[in-house]
């Protein structure tokens, strides 16, 4: 092969370098630099995403150490109460981001005090902080992720889907949450909370993760489409006006019976007292004696 534009002397010099004993090392270094540079240039986004994800996990870990680790352990492994099976806080390995988003996003966690059940209360973390906490807990082990917005956006459900959602709701949910989602009592001070005013995302996450005593309803059995229909039904029931007057919490015969007995009975007693009361009289004129005067 000939290189007409390159002088023979120069070619000879390159050939001499090629045979230098450090040439191999130099070529490898140049190649590695080129590949690394090309990778960094061609895929900047994924590299940045990885960094931000690990930043998020680290941010979540810092929040976790301050707000959660006293009960759930420094690495989310849970804290046992002495040598018993009971714990101060369960292990969070494998609970997934969905569980964190539900528990922290509804204010149930961090728990204010030990009790039969963590009640819903004011949310103490911002959305960004919850996202970071969820990312950290999700990094501890594989678990359910925060549901896709496609399944928590309940707008545009057809009447047929709502009806089917109602069937699923009555079969799976009403035993604890009541036929209109008003909630109900459980043993030992626990309760199934009311579903009114709960965000669709949180209802979905509760079904997915089974918080506290609630059973899990996995996506494999109750599909994401079914879950969306159930949430849509709950919201449609919530939006209905009270066709029968005061709903009295929707607890059925208990609250209605109490009100009918106390208010209804009181009204009947008051009416009876009014009807049979003697009423005011003019005492300075005796009717009977005046009648007698007239008779005479």
């Amino acid at each position, binding site marked *: 092969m000939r290189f007409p534009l390159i002088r023979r002397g120069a070619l000879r010099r390159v050939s001499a370098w090629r045979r230098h004993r450090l040439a191999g090392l130099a070529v490898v270094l140049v190649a590695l630099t080129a590949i690394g540079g090309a990778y960094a240039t061609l895929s900047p986004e994924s590299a940045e995403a990885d960094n931000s994800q690990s930043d998020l996990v680290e941010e979540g870990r810092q929040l976790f150490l301050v707000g959660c680790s006293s009960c759930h352990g420094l690495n989310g492994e849970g804290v046992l109460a002495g040598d018993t099976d009971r714990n101060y806080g369960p292990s969070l390995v494998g609970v997934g981001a969905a569980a964190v988003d539900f528990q922290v996003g509804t204010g149930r966690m961090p728990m204010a005090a030990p009790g039969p059940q963590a009640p819903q209360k004011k949310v103490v973390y911002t959305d960004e902080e919850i996202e970071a906490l969820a990312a950290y807990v999700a990094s501890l082990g594989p678990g359910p992720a925060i549901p896709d917005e496609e399944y928590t956006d309940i707008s545009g459900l057809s009447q047929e889907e709502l009806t*089917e959602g109602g*069937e*699923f709701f009555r*079969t*799976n949910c009403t*035993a*604890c949450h009541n036929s209109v989602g008003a909630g*109900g009592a*459980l*043993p030992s001070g*626990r309760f199934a909370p009311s579903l009114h005013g709960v965000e669709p995302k949180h209802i979905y996450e509760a079904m997915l993760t*089974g918080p*506290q*005593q*609630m*059973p*899990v*309803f*996995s996506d*494999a*059995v*109750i*599909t994401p489409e*079914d879950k969306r229909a159930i949430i849509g039904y709950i919201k449609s029931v919530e939006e209905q*006006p*009270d*066709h*029968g*007057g005061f709903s009295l919490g929707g607890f059925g015969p208990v609250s209605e019976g109490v009100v009918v007995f106390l208010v209804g009975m009181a009204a009947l007693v008051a009416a009876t007292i*009014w*009807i049979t009361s003697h*009423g*005011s*009289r*003019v*005492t300075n*004129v*005796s*009717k*009977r*004696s*005046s009648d*007698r005067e007239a008779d005479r």
Partner: protein
Amino acid sequence: MSDQDRRDERPPGAGELEPRAEAPPPGDPIPDPGLPEEFPRPSDVDPALERRYERQVAGMFGLATLLTLGFCVAYFAVPEDQTLFGFDALNFTLGMTLGGALLLIGLGAVQWARQLMHNEEIDEHRHSIASSEEDRAAALAITTTSAAESGLGRRTMIRNSLFGALGVLGLPTVILLRDLGPLPTDESLRTTVWTKGMRVVNDVAGTPIRPEDLELGQLVNAEPAVLVPTGDPEQDEEIGVLHGVELLNAKAKAAVILVRIDPQEITPPAGREDWDVAGILCYSKICTHVGCPISLWEQQTHNVLCPCHQSTFDLADGGKVTFGPAHRPLPQLQLGVDAEGYLIAMGDFQEQVGPSYPELGRD
């Protein structure tokens, strides 16, 4: 001599509370105080007040008329899907107008009686309920005469055929009530549609279930495959899905719940060690107390509760009753997996499902 007469005999001007002149009968140490003195109402003595009450009562009746007319107007005028103060506008206006009209008619009537109608207290005394001797004798005479004149005793053919016609009238009742039966047989009470190899499917959706679909702490309200139509007639035919009354009767006994519990926490009764599939247990959904459907499951305590009377069953402990009026454990169904990996029943329930009754178990 009645009390009324006695009171009238008292000298005029004598105090009403003065004891009777005669000695009280033995055993009645408290003298009869008589009636208290009666005074007129303000409306009896003040004509202006009387007119005011008259206007008041007439006003109530007038308003009731308007409200009733308002009801008629509202029935047509108020649209169905409108709300008023957070209530359904139609129901609210209909209830308020008709209820208000009835209330005002009642209030007006009571006010009329209390303030304007003639007002004098009287006392009436109880008397024997039986009619007088003369009335009774007359009634008996009429009955005897009628019986003789109708010839009921003489024309026996008419009488007997009438009795026959009236007697047969009882038959339709018997025939209609017959459909309440037949009495359930031991066979119909003891067995359900579960058979070996029948798939356990998700209620409502009808989809078969794989063990890996269930996570720890999961609850599935399930049915035998023959009780949930899939929506595809050919597939229904293949499975043998039941219809109509047959389906409802079968469903009343065959509904089940699946739960998945950590196998380490399960203490199966003797002989049921292999009734679960990887911690998935299947129990009847019908409470053994009076037969309410139960699926109120606490995943951490493994207890299922009946909402009717708070019977509580520990599903990790063979469905044992831990609280409440039920006294039979919840019947368990043995689970298996078929060749395609779906959960199936390994046979029917071994105990009777459904509510308990005194004859149960007295063979």
